[in-house]
C-alpha cells in the first residue's frame, strides 16, 4: 500500500520547512533511514530520513517549496503501484509571508511556476485527515528505550529525528543526537593533571548548521570572484551624534543600527550593489534587506532587517535588538535570517583592526567593520590630530559589481559616516 510521506517537524519549533534538494527521484528504492531530501528548517538544514522502505512513486513538492508540517511531500510504496489521484496542494505559502512588503522570495518556484489544474484548484487541499501526532508539530513515536535514554541524557526526545518505522525514534537516534548536540564533556579547563598527558585528537560531528555554513560560504567564495576595497573612516561626528541621542535617556541606539541605516542609504544610491547574480540576469533588489552577522555558540547566523531604506535608525535598532535576542534563543524563522541583499559583519568588539569577509549569498557584497580606535590623522591643514578611526573593507562579487562601482559606493558610505548630514543631501 502506497504511503503518503508528510513533512515532519525536524526541529521543535518548526512549523514549515523548505525542501532545498531532493536526494531521491521517482523510481528510486529507499530504505528506512535513507535521506529523502534536505529541508531548511527555522534553524538549520536538516536531512529528512525516510520513515519507511519502498519505492519512491512520486515527489509531490518541488525543490524550493515551503511545506507545512503534516502536508504530504512524496509517495512511497511498491514499484509500479498507482498513487491515488492527489489533489494538488494549494500554492506553497510564500517564504516571506510575514516579511516586509516589497520583498520577493528567491525560491525556484519563481522560475518554475507550478501548474494548478483549474478543476482541482477548487478542491480542498487534502482529503485525508492527518495523523494527530503530525499536526502537533513533533514526531512523537519513540521506543521505550529511546525515551528512557533521552530522559537520562537530558534530551528532549521531540527534537530527535527518528530513523525507525514511521519516524520512530530509537536508541541509535538518541545516541547520535547526543553526540552531535555537542554534549561532549564540557571540561575545557586544562587542569594540571591533563597537562602532563598527551592532548588527544577528537572528532566532532558536523551539525546541520555548520554544514550549511560550510556549504554556502564555500559556494560563495569559490564561485563569486571576490575583490576587496578598503577605507579608513573618521568616526568622530557619528560617535558624537550617537552620544547625544543616547544621552536623551531613551533607549540606547546601537552603533550597528547607524551602520545599517547609512549602508542602506548608500545602497539606495548605488542599486547595483544591492543585487544578485542569476547567471543570465542580474537581479537588482527593490528592497534593501541588510543582514548582520551574529556569532552564536553553534555558529554564525545573520538576522535580516528588511526594507532598511524605508526605516529610521531607531526602528532599525528595535528590530535588530529583537532579532538578535531571538537568534540567541535559537528561535529565528528562516525568513528572518535568509536572503539578505547586503550584509554587515562587525568584529570591532574583538579588537580586530580590519578584516575581509566572504560574501553572504544571495547578496553581492559584504561590509567588514573593524574596531573604532584613536589614531593620529593628518588633516587638510597638515596638522596631526587624534581622531576615532574605523577601518572597513567591502568584499564585492565582480560578476555584478565592477571596481569603480564598488569604490563609488564605498566613498559615498564613508562620506556619510563622516558627515551624517549628507544623508539628507
Amino acid at each position, binding site marked *: 500500500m502506497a504511503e503518503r510521506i508528510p513533512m515532519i517537524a525536524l526541529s521543535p519549533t518548526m512549523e514549515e520547512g523548505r525542501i532545498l534538494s531532493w536526494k531521491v527521484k521517482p523510481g528510486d528504492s529507499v530504505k528506512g533511514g535513507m535521506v529523502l531530501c534536505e529541508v531548511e528548517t527555522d534553524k538549520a538544514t536538516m536531512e529528512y530520513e525516510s520513515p519507511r522502505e519502498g519505492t519512491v512513486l512520486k515527489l509531490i513538492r518541488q525543490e524550493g517549496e515551503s511545506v507545512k508540517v503534516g502536508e504530504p511531500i512524496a509517495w512511497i510504496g511498491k514499484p509500479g503501484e498507482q498513487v491515488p489521484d492527489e489533489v494538488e496542494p494549494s500554492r506553497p505559502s510564500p517564504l516571506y509571508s510575514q516579511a516586509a512588503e516589497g520583498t520577493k522570495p528567491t525560491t525556484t518556484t519563481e522560475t518554475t511556476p507550478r501548474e494548478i489544474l483549474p478543476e482541482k484548484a477548487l478542491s480542498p487541499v487534502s482529503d485525508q485527515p492527518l495523523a494527530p501526532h503530525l499536526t502537533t508539530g513533533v514526531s512523537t513515536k519513540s521506543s521505550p528505550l529511546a525515551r528512557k535514554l533521552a530522559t537520562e541524557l537530558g534530551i528532549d526526545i521531540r527534537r530527535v529525528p527518528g*530513523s525507525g518505522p514511521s519516524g520512530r525514534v530509537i536508541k541509535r537516534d538518541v545516541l547520535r543526537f547526543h553526540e552531535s548536540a555537542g554534549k561532549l564533556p564540557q571540561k575545557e579547563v586544562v587542569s594540571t593533571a591533563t597537562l602532563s598527558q598527551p592532548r588527544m585528537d577528537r572528532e566532532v560531528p558536523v551539525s546541520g548548521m555548520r554544514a550549511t555554513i560550510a556549504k554556502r560560504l564555500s559556494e560563495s567564495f569559490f564561485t563569486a570572484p571576490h575583490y576587496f576595497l578598503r577605507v579608513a573612516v573618521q568616526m568622530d561626528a557619528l560617535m558624537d551624534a550617537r552620544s547625544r541621542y543616547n544621552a536623551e535617556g531613551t533607549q540606547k541606539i546601537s552603533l550597528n543600527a547607524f551602520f545599517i541605516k547609512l549602508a542602506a542609504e548608500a545602497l539606495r544610491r548605488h542599486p547595483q550593489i544591492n543585487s544578485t547574480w542569476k547567471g543570465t540576469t542580474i537581479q537588482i533588489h527593490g528592497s534593501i534587506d541588510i543582514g548582520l552577522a551574529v556569532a552564536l555558540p553553534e555558529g554564525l547566523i545573520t538576522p535580516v532587517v528588511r526594507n532598511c531604506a524605508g526605516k529610521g535608525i531607531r526602528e532599525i535598532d528595535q528590530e535588530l535588538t529583537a532579532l538578535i535576542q531571538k537568534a540567541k534563543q535559537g528561535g529565528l524563522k528562516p525568513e528572518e535570517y535568509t536572503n539578505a541583499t547586503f550584509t554587515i559583519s562587525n568584529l570591532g568588539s574583538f579588537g580586530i583592526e580590519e578584516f575581509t569577509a566572504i560574501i553572504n549569498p544571495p547578496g553581492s557584497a559584504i561590509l567588514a567593520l573593524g574596531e573604532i580606535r584613536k589614531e593620529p590623522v593628518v588633516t587638510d591643514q597638515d596638522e596631526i590630530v587624534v581622531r576615532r578611526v574605523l577601518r572597513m573593507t567591502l568584499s564585492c562579487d565582480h560578476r555584478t559589481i565592477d571596481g569603480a562601482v564598488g569604490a563609488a559606493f564605498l566613498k559615498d558610505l564613508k562620506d556619510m559616516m563622516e558627515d551624517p548630514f549628507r544623508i539628507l543631501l
Partner: protein
Amino acid sequence: MPIITYREALNQALDEEMARDESVFLIGEEVGEYNGAYKVSKGLLDKYGPRRVIDTPITELGFTGIGVGAAMAGLRPVVEWMTHNFALLALDQVVNNAAKMRYMSGGQFKLPIVFRGPNGPAEYLAAQHSQALQTYWTHVPGLKVVAPATPYDAKGLLKSAIRDDNPVVVLEGELMYAWKGEVPEEEYLVPIGKADVKREGTDVTIVTYSKPLKVVQEAADVLAQEGIQVEIVDLRTLRPIDEETVYQSVRKTNRAVVVDESWPVVSVGSHMAWLISKNCFDVLDAQVELVASEDIPMPYNHTLELAAQPSVDKVIAAVKKVLYLGE
C-alpha cells in the same frame, strides 16, 4: 566427556532413576518388548522386568489414568506417550486428575508422575501427527513442563522430573532423538525452572526452547558473519518459566525475538513475548518479534511442511526487524 545421543541420554536417565528408586516404573505402548517406539527404553525390560516396564494396549486415557492412580498410591510412574498427538486422548487424566489432585486434597496426595514422549513436527507426518502441543500442558496450573533441547539437558531434566513430587510433562522430539551432545559420566541434575544461556551476545536476545534451538543457532552463526551478536536463551522449562534469565538478557541487548515451533495464537511463545513486552518495556528499543509455525494445520507436502515452520531465514528476518536493518 562422552558424546551420546538425546535418545541414549533419556535412556540413561530412566535407567539411573529406576536403579536408584524401586518405586520408579515405566508404562506405555511398546515400551517393553519393542524397546520403545523410538528405542528410548531399550534394554530396560531385560534389566528391570515386566513389573517395572509395562506394555499397554493402545489406550492412552486408560494407562495415563493408571499412572495417575499409581502416583497417588505412592509410586513414581513414568508414562510414555508414543507422541503428544496421541496424548490428546489422555488430556482429561492429566488436566483434571494429575494437575488437580494435590490441590483438591489439600496436599494429602502427592503426584510424583512423569508424562513423556515426542512433541512437535517431525517429517512427512501430516496434520494429525505433526503438532507442537506444548501450549496444552503449559496452560494448566498444577503441571510442570520441561522441553530439553540437548542430550545433557534431556538427561538432567528427566532425572529431576522423576524425582519431583509434582506431575511433570517432558517434551521430547522425534527428530531430536538422534541429536548428539556431551553428557558427563558422573551423575548430575538439571533443575526444573532454570533457563540456560546457550550463546552469549550483545545485540539481540533470542528466546527459544526445544527443537528450534538448532535453527536459532544456525541463524546466529549467519548473523555473526554480518557482525550481529545474538544471545540465545534456552528456556528448557516452560512451567515454571525462568523469567529473570530472559529479562537479564533483554536488559543487556534491548531487543528480543521469541522462536517457538507451535502455532502463534495463545502459545508459549506469544506468552513469552507478552512477558518481555510488559517487564522489559523501558529497555526495549523495538517491538518483540515472534517467529512461530504458520497458523495452519501441518501440510503433508514436504516443501510446504518446511515452509510452515520456523526457519533460519525467518529468524534472521525477525532479528533484522528488531535491529531496524532493512532487508
